[in-house]
């Protein structure tokens, strides 16, 4: 067999998968904006140290002049010029002392606890257009944020349609919670992204095909973005059909096409399946402070009139039969514990903080779930004050 025959035969079996014509553009677009430490660090180390020294001196001088006014917003602060629009009826517990951010049709609100006072944030009202539904580190943002493990930064995704481009441009932002500086760590075209987790120096996001996939900078799927060095990598998953929707404590949680709940260990690749809610639709809604997943189980076949489960009861078969959906906390052993099957609450997005898990009902009710005491109604707001829907927008500060 001659060399020419070998070449011809190899091409026959290997040329069957031609490269994607957009591969070059995608590869180039995936590069970090800055060079790596190997290049950048060496060259600019000396200059950087000099700049740092100069900046420190100047900043010190400025701070000494302006005093407290120069201190940036930090996590826990809220707008000082809230407009009081009424009061909610506070039910329990009354020992809470914080303000709970709420996003309502009317605008961004803060529910004072235990006084029940409702303050409207004038910087986020329906008068200015769409209400931004999440409050984090002193700022209202439209997309759901993910906080870094050490709390020093949070990440969120944004998208915009540029007039000059026929496709959607998406971006991932990392915001320093101390300084408020908003840094775009990645920008791409033809996809929409949602941030689902923030690990140590890594932001995890799902990419979805937008309307014009031909211009897509990255393929749909789960990606990790390096917040320090820049760049992105596709997360290797064993099953492309699994809907991954949350990262916590080194694992990504999702719902396999076969049903149930799945945890994929991002370091080892180990897969743990929790066979809950067989035959039902599962959505990972978030995590509590201990990293336990909060899931919504929606029954596919509703059986009206069947006995309802009581809250906090361990369910061997967790599909609620009397209600079309229910919220559960899944323990480390894979046991689903019922939070609620109240129709007014099952579609609300839970928010976990140091107090527990907050829920807001479609009827203006505000609830707190704690492992010890279960779900308790904290307050009732007159729906007329909200202008319509309401959701919990962040931690009670």
């Amino acid at each position, binding site marked *: 067999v001659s060399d020419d*025959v*070998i070449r011809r035969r190899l091409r026959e079996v290997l040329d069957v998968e031609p490269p994607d014509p957009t591969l070059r553009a995608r590869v180039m677009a995936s590069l970090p904006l800055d060079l790596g430490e*190997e290049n950048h660090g060496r060259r600019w180390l000396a200059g950087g140290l000099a700049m740092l020294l100069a900046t420190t001196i100047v900043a010190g001088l400025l701070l000494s002049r302006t005093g407290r006014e120069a201190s940036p917003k930090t996590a826990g602060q809220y707008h000082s010029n809230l407009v009081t629009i009424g009061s909610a009826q506070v039910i329990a517990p009354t020992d809470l002392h914080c303000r709970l951010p709420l996003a309502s049709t009317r605008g961004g609100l803060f529910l004072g606890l235990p006084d029940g006072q409702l303050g409207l944030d004038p910087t986020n009202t329906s008068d200015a257009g769409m209400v931004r539904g999440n409050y984090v580190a002193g700022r209202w943002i439209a997309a759901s944020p993910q906080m870094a493990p050490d709390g020093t930064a949070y990440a969120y995704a944004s998208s915009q349609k540029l007039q000059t481009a026929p496709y959607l441009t998406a971006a991932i932002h990392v915001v320093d919670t101390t300084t408020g500086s908003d840094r775009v760590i990645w920008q791409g075209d033809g996809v929409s992204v949602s941030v689902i987790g923030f690990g140590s120096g890594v932001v995890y996001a799902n990419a979805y095909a937008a309307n014009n996939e031909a211009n897509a900078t990255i393929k749909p799927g789960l990606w990790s973005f390096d917040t320090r060095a820049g760049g992105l990598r596709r997360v290797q998953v*064993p099953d492309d059909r699994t809907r991954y929707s949350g990262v916590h404590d080194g694992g990504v949680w999702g719902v396999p096409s076969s049903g149930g709940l799945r945890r994929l260990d991002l370091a080892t690749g180990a897969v743990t399946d929790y066979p809950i809610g067989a035959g039902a639709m599962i959505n990972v809604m978030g995590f509590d402070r201990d990293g336990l997943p909060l899931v919504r189980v929606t029954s596919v076949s509703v059986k009206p009139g069947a006995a309802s489960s009581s809250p906090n009861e361990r369910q061997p078969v967790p599909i609620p039969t009397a209600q079309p959906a229910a919220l559960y906390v899944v323990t480390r052993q894979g046991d689903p514990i019922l939070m609620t099957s109240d129709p007014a609450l099952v579609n609300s997005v839970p928010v976990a903080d140091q107090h527990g898990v907050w829920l807001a009902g479609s009827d203006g009710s505000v609830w707190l779930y704690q492992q010890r005491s279960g779900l308790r109604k904290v307050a009732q707001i007159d729906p007329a004050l909200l202008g319509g829907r309401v959701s919990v927008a962040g931690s009670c500060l």
Partner: protein
Amino acid sequence: MQDDLIREAKAGDRQAFDALVGPMIDPAYRLAFGMLHDREAAEDAVQEAAFKAWKKLANVRDGSGMRPWFFAIVANQCRSTRRSRWWSVLRLGDGDQRSLQIEDRIVRGADLRRALRTLSHDQRLAVVLHYYLDLPLEEVAAVVGAPLGTVKSRIHRGLQQVRPQIEAREAFE
């Protein structure tokens, strides 16, 4: 010209990097596909390799060949991919070829592809670079970082293993 581009790329010029590496993306994909036999994995390997190349540009010396340097990164990335746990997990599902009839397997090249997969990484890399990407032996040696004699030996041993499948295809036609 290439040295100028390398200097500009080292200074952080992405366009210079694109001018240097961009034309090599397609052959790099072919190299990765030749090593991995999986389109998605090959694209990922090229993307990862380009990322590493961008980060390690300081290691490129003026006057040295950019292509062997970049292909070596791609080859190393393919080696890492094949060693990863996911690769072994995903490959377990690759058993559909077993059900094909012998004639079908020969016609579709499945036997030859499988024979290529049985080669060691070094043998397969040398064969793919020389016979699939048409790189001269001297450049193959530069990519794999081995003496010319070693490269010839790897190719010789590799071809010994795939030759029966090639001869079978020749005979079948």
